[in-house]
């Protein structure tokens, strides 16, 4: 009995296939009395023939009534869906069930990892709020809270259609075939995809489709991650109505455009097939698409907003404005690190087929790079300033995770560890550069964590991709595996990555800057100085985050604002 139970799942399929071949062989043998007759199509009758399921020996109703504490009698041949109950189980039913099971596994995987990414919003919210002063806590939390709604709405209306409306089908999700309309132009004799046009309101163009819904959910939470990066850099001085307008624009246009070029079948994705540059721009989970787009928009906005009052003295020297709660900052970093296991492994959009079992490798790469990122930052701060700074160590963890996001599906663990370590040091150098040299105020370090390290992550694909990954045999329509310069792949992949980087700092920066400049002209981006000094909780939101606490008189006003 035990042997039967161990074998029954596999043996049932084998028996079914054997019986199918038997039926097929009989069907191909012409009847002796009619030698000239054309044999019937061998496969179709076999597929439709009832199968002998006795060998599968499903548990009897008597057995089932006793319960199944060991779980060996649940999920047997009795649970395979039968299309015609009179006929009984056929091979066609079995094959359809196998196909649906594969897609179901991929649906569940993609949805659950999408839910993890959605939870990252909570991590971002408390990291950013903790790094700001208590007097702005309600304002900062409410930006992070509502960016989810503003972004989702804009993405549903048009962002998703622009980004994925021409992706041309996602095989791991069973097709998503209605997403087949990409607007292109011809440049240098090659077709350049610019934006998709199917999927507005998730109904237009036949996109009321189960696979499209799964893809939408997963892409939507990624888009929202990019949007919430900006709120950190602009915190403590951003007018709420300007934030709402800017976020809707970014969710509707800026993010989807680059998303289309990289992931929606656009011109960056086809740099490989069009110009022989490796596999084209390869960004596995979005160091560029998500993080650099967010970081670069944050840079454009921070320049327009200007620094917080009291951040710089008249001679240009910076003042440190510490956050109010390091505990929630580090808790938020942990939440983000947890959510990243949805971000990177989930980007396979599959757990079954097409090389998707690489999810284990992707998860370990993610874990390692976050770890070495925090190592890099803590070592840098300890050696340079004599203390293991908590907020920069948290930023180091995030920098490592940001950097590994693009290469996570293409590199090995040694590559991941190196990429993360470099990111941890790079985030410290970048924060110092923007703070002291460029004098661009970024309260949470978002430009450095997401912008600088997003770019580093994109470039690192062209260096560290080891050529061992194989997602269904090709990536971006080019056969073989993505291979970087250090693993014998030549410079083509690196060039494709750099074209992507230049597009981020050239086109995405320009769109973000012009859009926010226009918003500044019509609405005004920055709050009034007196509101900024008082804290934005009352003037902007009408309520304090911590009404029972006594806030200290403004200490950030050392310098100019104290006058």
């Amino acid at each position, binding site marked *: 009995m035990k042997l039967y139970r161990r074998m029954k799942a596999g043996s049932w399929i084998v028996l079914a296939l054997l019986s199918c071949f038997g039926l097929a062989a009989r069907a191909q043998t012409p009847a002796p009395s009619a030698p000239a007759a054309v044999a019937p199509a061998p496969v179709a009758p076999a597929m439709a023939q009832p199968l002998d399921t006795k060998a599968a020996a499903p548990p009897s109703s008597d057995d089932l009534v006793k319960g199944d504490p060991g779980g060996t009698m649940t999920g047997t041949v009795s649970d395979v869906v039968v299309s015609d109950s009179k006929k009984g189980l056929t091979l066609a039913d079995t094959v359809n069930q196998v196909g649906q099971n594969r897609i179901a596994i991929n649906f569940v995987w993609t949805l659950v990892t999408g839910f993890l990414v959605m939870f990252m919003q909570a991590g971002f919210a408390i990291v950013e709020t903790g790094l700001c002063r208590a007097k702005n806590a309600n304002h900062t939390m409410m930006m992070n809270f509502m960016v989810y709604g503003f972004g989702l709405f804009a993405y549903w209306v048009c962002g998703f259609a622009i980004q994925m409306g021409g992706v041309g089908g996602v095989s791991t999700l069973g097709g998503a075939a209605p997403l087949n309309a990409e607007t292109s132009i011809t440049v240098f004799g090659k077709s350049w995809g610019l934006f998709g046009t199917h999927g507005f309101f998730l109904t237009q163009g036949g996109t009321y489709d189960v696979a499209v819904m799964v893809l939408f959910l997963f892409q939507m939470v990624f888009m929202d991650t990019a949007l919430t990066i900006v709120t950190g850099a602009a915190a403590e001085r951003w007018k709420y109505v300007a934030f709402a307008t800017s976020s809707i624009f970014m969710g509707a246009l800026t993010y989807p455009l680059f998303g289309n070029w990289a992931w929606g079948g656009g011109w960056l994705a086809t740099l490989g097939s069009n110009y022989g540059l490796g596999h084209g721009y390869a960004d596995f989970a979005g160091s560029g698409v998500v993080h650099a787009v967010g970081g670069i928009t944050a840079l454009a906005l921070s320049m327009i907003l200007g620094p917080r009052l009291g951040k710089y003295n*008249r001679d240009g020297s910076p003042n440190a404005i510490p956050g109010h709660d390091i505990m929630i900052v580090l808790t938020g970093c942990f939440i983000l690190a947890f959510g990243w296991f949805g971000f990177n492994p989930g980007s396979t959009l599959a757990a079954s087929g097409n090389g998707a079992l690489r999810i284990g490798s992707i998860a370990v790469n993610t874990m390692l790079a976050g770890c070495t990122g925090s190592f890099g930052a803590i070592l840098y701060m300890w050696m340079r300033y004599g203390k293991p700074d908590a907020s920069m160590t948290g930023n180091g963890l995030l920098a490592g995770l940001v950097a590994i996001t693009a290469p996570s599906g293409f590199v090995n663990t040694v590559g991941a560890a190196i990429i993360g370590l470099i990111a941890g040091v790079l985030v410290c150098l970048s924060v110092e550069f923007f703070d002291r040299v460029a004098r661009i105020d970024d309260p949470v370090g978002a430009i450095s964590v997401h912008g600088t390290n997003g770019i580093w992550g994109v470039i690192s694909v062209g260096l560290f991709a080891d050529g061992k990954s194989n997602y269904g045999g090709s990536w971006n329509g080019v056969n073989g595996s993505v291979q970087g310069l250090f693993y014998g792949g030549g410079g083509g992949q690196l060039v494709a990555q750099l074209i992507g980087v230049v597009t981020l700092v050239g086109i995405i920066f320009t769109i973000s800057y012009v859009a926010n400049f226009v918003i500044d002209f019509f609405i005004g981006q920055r709050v009034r100085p007196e509101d900024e000094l008082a804290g934005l909780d009352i003037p902007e939101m009408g309520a304090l985050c911590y009404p029972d606490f006594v806030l200290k008189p403004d200490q950030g006003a050392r310098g100019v604002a104290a006058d």
Partner: protein
Amino acid sequence: MKLVGILVVLAGWLVAVVGLGITQSTGARLLLAILGFVICLVGILGVLNKAHMKNAVWKA
């Protein structure tokens, strides 16, 4: 100056992209992409940011 900064940024992107059409050499495309990246950074940090710094709040 802000407009000049934006134009420099766009010029950087054009330099990198034009490399795709004018040469087949990976090395030349690599050089043009790096050059384009540097031009973009000069446009953002050297020109545009400098223009914003002119009227910075802390200089008042």
